[in-house]
């Protein structure tokens, strides 16, 4: 029999498992669902063993694909039939709830779906868009003056979303700033995008503590370990995990006229001191102010606090060492 298109086989499998009254056994699926090779008694024993194994592999992969696609296949055992495992799809698990999107909402989802282009999540976004678009009444397409894209999307993100959703631990190689590349085992709680950068927030099992991981520093594949539902993420994440460690305060910064507009717009003008304008700037972490002052290349200096002023000077001198070396 010529192999039929895999989409057609999956469609027939979904229809069969949705319509079966109680369950379908593997043998029934193989014998009756179009797209699987039924048992052929005229085959040699060796050949039919090969075919059996091929069917098992194909069916396992189809089950995984459908589950990942949003349709869980339930296993149904029947006390009267011993260990036989049967399968069924409950339409209540599978069916798309009515979302009732307006044409403008569908159009903006279409814009958003482009955000992940080039990353694994891009295919998921497009597929999600087709699913929600199936329900929306026809209309002239709405052309929106918006666009979105990311250059930072990581292929690991898709696997981490799934693991966070299934509450399954993951293992990966991670390049940390302090300890080099090590293997981490993490209970993924949440994914976070801050400033376009993707992070994973979760409990590091080896360190037995919550940690934030930069997804771009994950090398290679994200492996799932253990079984789904093996942990319960906290309902509210500690603030510091979302914003990064903080050491808030205010700095007094001197700025040349017509310079430091970003600092000025966040701060408060205090007074003028010769060629310098004094501006008081609140910060979440002093390093951020230090980096902004450094980037202004002499058009700014820190007046207070003294430790911050010293740190700016120390950075400039460290750079001079490299450029003279």
């Amino acid at each position, binding site marked *: 029999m010529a192999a039929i*298109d895999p*989409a*057609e086989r999956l469609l027939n499998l*979904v229809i069969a498992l949705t319509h079966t009254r109680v369950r379908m056994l593997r043998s029934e699926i193989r014998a009756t669902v*179009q797209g699987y090779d039924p048992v052929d008694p005229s085959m040699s024993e060796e050949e039919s063993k090969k075919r059996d194994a091929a069917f098992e592999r194909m069916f396992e992969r189809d089950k995984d694909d459908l589950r*990942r*696609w*949003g*349709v869980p296949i339930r296993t149904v055992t029947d006390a009267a039939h011993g260990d036989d495992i049967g399968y069924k799809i409950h339409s209540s698990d599978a069916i798309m709830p009515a*979302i009732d*999107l*307006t044409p403008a909402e569908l159009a*903006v*989802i279409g814009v*958003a779906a482009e955000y*992940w282009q080039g990353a694994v999540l891009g295919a*998921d*976004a497009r597929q999600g868009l*087709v699913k929600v678009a*199936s*329900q929306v009444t*026809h209309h002239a397409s709405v052309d929106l003056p*918006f*666009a*979105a*894209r*990311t*250059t*930072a999307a990581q292929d690991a993100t898709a696997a981490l*979303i*799934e693991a966070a*959703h299934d509450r399954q631990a993951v293992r990966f190689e991670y*390049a940390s*700033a302090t300890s*080099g*590349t090590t293997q981490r085992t993490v209970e993924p709680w949440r994914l976070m*995008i801050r400033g*376009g*950068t993707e992070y994973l927030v979760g409990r590091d099992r080896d360190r037995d503590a919550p940690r934030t991981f930069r997804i771009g*520093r994950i090398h290679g594949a994200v492996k799932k370990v253990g079984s789904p539902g093996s942990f319960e993420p906290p309902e509210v994440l500690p603030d510091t995990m*979302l914003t990064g460690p903080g050491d808030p305060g205010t700095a007094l910064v001197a700025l040349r006229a017509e310079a430091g*507009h970003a600092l000025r*717009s966040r701060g408060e003008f205090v007074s003028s001191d010769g060629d310098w304008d004094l501006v008081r700037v609140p910060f979440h972490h002093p390093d951020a102010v230090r980096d902004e*002052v*450094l*980037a*202004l*290349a*002499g058009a700014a*200096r820190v007046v207070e606090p003294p430790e911050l*002023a010293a740190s700016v*000077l*120390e*950075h*400039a001198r*460290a*750079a*001079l060492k*490299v450029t*003279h070396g």
Partner: protein
Amino acid sequence: MAEKALPRLTRLLGIVTYLEQQGPTSFAVLAERFGVSEDQIRKDVGTLSVSGLPGYMPDDLLDFDFSAFDHGVASLTESHGVSQVRLSAREAVALTGALSALVAAGTAPAAALTALDKLRGAMDGNDPMVVLPASSTKPEVSQALLDAVARRRVATVTYVDAHDRLTEREIEPHRLVTIDGIGYVECFCRRAGDYRTLRLDRMNAVTVTDEPVVAAPSDADGFTLVPRFDARVVVARSGRWALEELPGVALDEVGDDVEATFGVTNAHWVAGRLLAIAPYLRVVEPEELVQALGDAAKAVETAQAG
């Protein structure tokens, strides 16, 4: 390569759901809705019409009106309860995460918020992605630009550029874009006499004028700056974070160090980034970047040491 199975399966179910709700629909309309050719829709309807319940006798199959088919119209007469399936976790998060990024960047129309609510309502349980704003775009800035884009009007903006210069510009805004979580407006800048992509969080004030937009939108994507030279920087691991943020950077671990290679468009801008990790710098190349870094460091030292 043939189309993958799940995207096609998704569309097959989408076609059935759409026809159930809308009634007979031309292949042309289906092709537009599902973003494929009319020929593909014809094949899809063909596939659907031979699929169905085990047994696959005529009454078991999804049934279409074949005289309509010959006229390029899909007319479903029996669906056997086939319908679109719910969003998978990945699909749902891909959509809500991207919508949240648009909202956080301040470049989303009002429909993004209601769409986000509706999608979250359809998800089973919690949304595992949190999106935090990268920077603070003033709501009145994005509101005014949205208004200008919608009514195709010129806007006057005060803008702090990447070199920290405050300028006033007349722009013809075409489109709001989110790139890596940061909001921009693509526009024709009359001051520069050229197309520009300006950051919304660097705008202090926007006034919408009555003057109509005349320049056509640019075909080019926002960032067309061409690197002038290639640079190589080696830092101790603790300095890695600043290099990760450089556009187009390639990072390699070398023992306890990290080596970065990247294209430089503006040596002064890169020098500013490198100052932030100066204590961890080991190697900076080429000479042009060394020069820019040295100049910046000297200027900071002079200003700070007073």
